[in-house]
């Protein structure tokens, strides 16, 4: 038990300790300010108590965030606009849609790049260039352009998620689809197998170990995309909107709880993919090979 969870628990505890200490350090000025105006002398324990319980602290203490999380998830109906679950779902739905589109686009591009010399030479540089453009710059443009042609709501946000998530999938899948060695390709040739037969019987199964790590990176990128898409567009729903609203009104506790929610969401998505990966590789008789 300790072997497995010990290191994780240790690190988490260390983070909490650091967090509490930093909360004291960062919120001290405001605590003294308040004390001065009220004409009270602050002892050390009162100072600490104050820094850990301010309404709009620079850095909220962990328990404040936990309380906020509890109040905005368990204690609110999920249909309420104040429910973090509601906002998380908004972001998650566009994440998943964008991730699905990005996966399909990434795989199709990779298949094209592997099979077509012209695509190999022409598409890859553009794929790489697409990722050098700051997403914050291009996100509002995508939303405006799509809005102009009458598409709004979920789709534009998903497109931004897709934009971020297709890249790792293209890169991983190009490598994966090229994983079969010369001998395996010759073997297919001796059977007079068509390109498409070679794709489904050899290239595709060979690429699976490359696909899953790409998917994990892709899904996390899709979530970032969805949140970023909510920032510059004046969205009122979603985790990005919560972050933005929080920063407008100095609601640091709200920002931190939205951040933690986003992190939890990303971790869960990656974990789910990890499970599917394990199951798939076992089905394909590969994980036993590795642990033989």
């Amino acid at each position, binding site marked *: 038990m300790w072997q497995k969870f010990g290191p994780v628990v240790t690190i988490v505890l260390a983070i909490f300790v650091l967090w509490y200490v930093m909360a004291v350090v960062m919120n001290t000025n405001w605590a003294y300010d308040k004390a001065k105006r009220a004409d009270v002398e602050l002892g050390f324990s009162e100072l600490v108590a104050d820094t850990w319980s301010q309404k709009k602290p620079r850095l909220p203490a962990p328990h404040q965030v936990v309380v906020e999380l509890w109040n905005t998830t368990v204690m609110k109906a999920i249909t309420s606009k104040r429910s973090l679950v509601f906002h998380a779902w908004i972001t998650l739905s566009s994440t998943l849609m964008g991730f699905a589109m990005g996966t399909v686009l990434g795989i199709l591009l990779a298949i094209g790049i592997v099979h077509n010399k012209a695509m190999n030479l022409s598409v890859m540089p553009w794929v790489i260039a697409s990722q050098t453009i700051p997403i914050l710059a291009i996100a509002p443009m995508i939303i405006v352009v799509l809005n102009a042609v009458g598409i709004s709501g979920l789709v534009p946000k998903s497109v931004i998620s897709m934009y971020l998530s297709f890249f790792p999938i293209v890169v991983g899948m190009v490598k994966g689809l090229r994983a079969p060695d010369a001998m395996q390709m*010759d*073997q297919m040739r*001796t*059977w007079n197998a068509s390109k498409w037969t070679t794709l489904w019987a050899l290239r595709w*199964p060979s690429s699976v170990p490359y696909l899953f790590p790409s998917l994990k990176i892709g899904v996390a990128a899709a979530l970032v995309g969805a949140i970023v898409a909510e920032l510059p567009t004046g969205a009122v729903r979603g985790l990005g909107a919560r972050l933005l609203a929080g920063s407008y009104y100095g609601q640091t506790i709200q920002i931190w709880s939205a951040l933690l929610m986003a992190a939890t969401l990303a971790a869960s998505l990656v974990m789910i993919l990890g499970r599917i990966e394990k199951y798939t590789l076992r089905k*394909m*008789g590969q994980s036993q090979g590795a642990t033989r």
Partner: protein
Amino acid sequence: MSQPTVIEAKNLSLTFETNDGPVQALQGIDLTIKKGEFVSFIGPSGCGKTTFLRVMADLETPTGGEISVNGMTPEEARMKRAYGYVFQAAGLYPWRTIAGNIRLPLEIMGYSKAEQATRVKEVLELVHLDGVENKFPWQLSGGMQQRASIARALSFDADLLLMDEPFGALDEIVRDHLNEQLLELWAATNKTICFVTHSIPEAVYLSTKIVVMSPRPGRIIDIIESSLPKERPLDIRESAEFLDIAHRVREGLRAGHGDD
């Protein structure tokens, strides 16, 4: 021999263009192989034995001369799936079971499900691998994997078997055993076998015809028709006749080396 001709090469040559200039991999190859023969190609690395096999399989294109496989060009023969090719490594797909691997060419060639099942069973018995159908390749020893890959090459109707040092990576004992089984299999199926090897005893033990090759440029030094009987117990390798043939092969290899 009145058997039909399977392979016929006339003045065949192949030059690879490399960064260091052209490399003459094959030069002036003349060879005729009849149906049912077991032909070994032996020679040092770079003598073109594998290249010649790959030309037969249409994996390389010759740059001069003529070659026919079953009376067709190698490409037509490949399109008609006229041969099974066994590579140096077993090359089984790790995500398919043994039966799944053997079934693969049958699936590609569009055999019916029932036909696939019977053929898989047949060839597994032929290579003495019955019972491991549902195992994954990593659960089998190297020798068993190579047998499975031979079974895969036998599973469809090709009467020509091209083998590129199939037992090169296996140890001596396993190799002896597989050589014996290969002869058995050859007798049972009456296929034509072209077999590339580094080993003189292996070549002499298996073949009805031994083609001795030499490098730079790759060419044929000697073609030896074996006088050994078709029935060959392992201890035939101690007979005087066997040693005579082995000696001639060795002489040929030495002569080929004398050139550089």
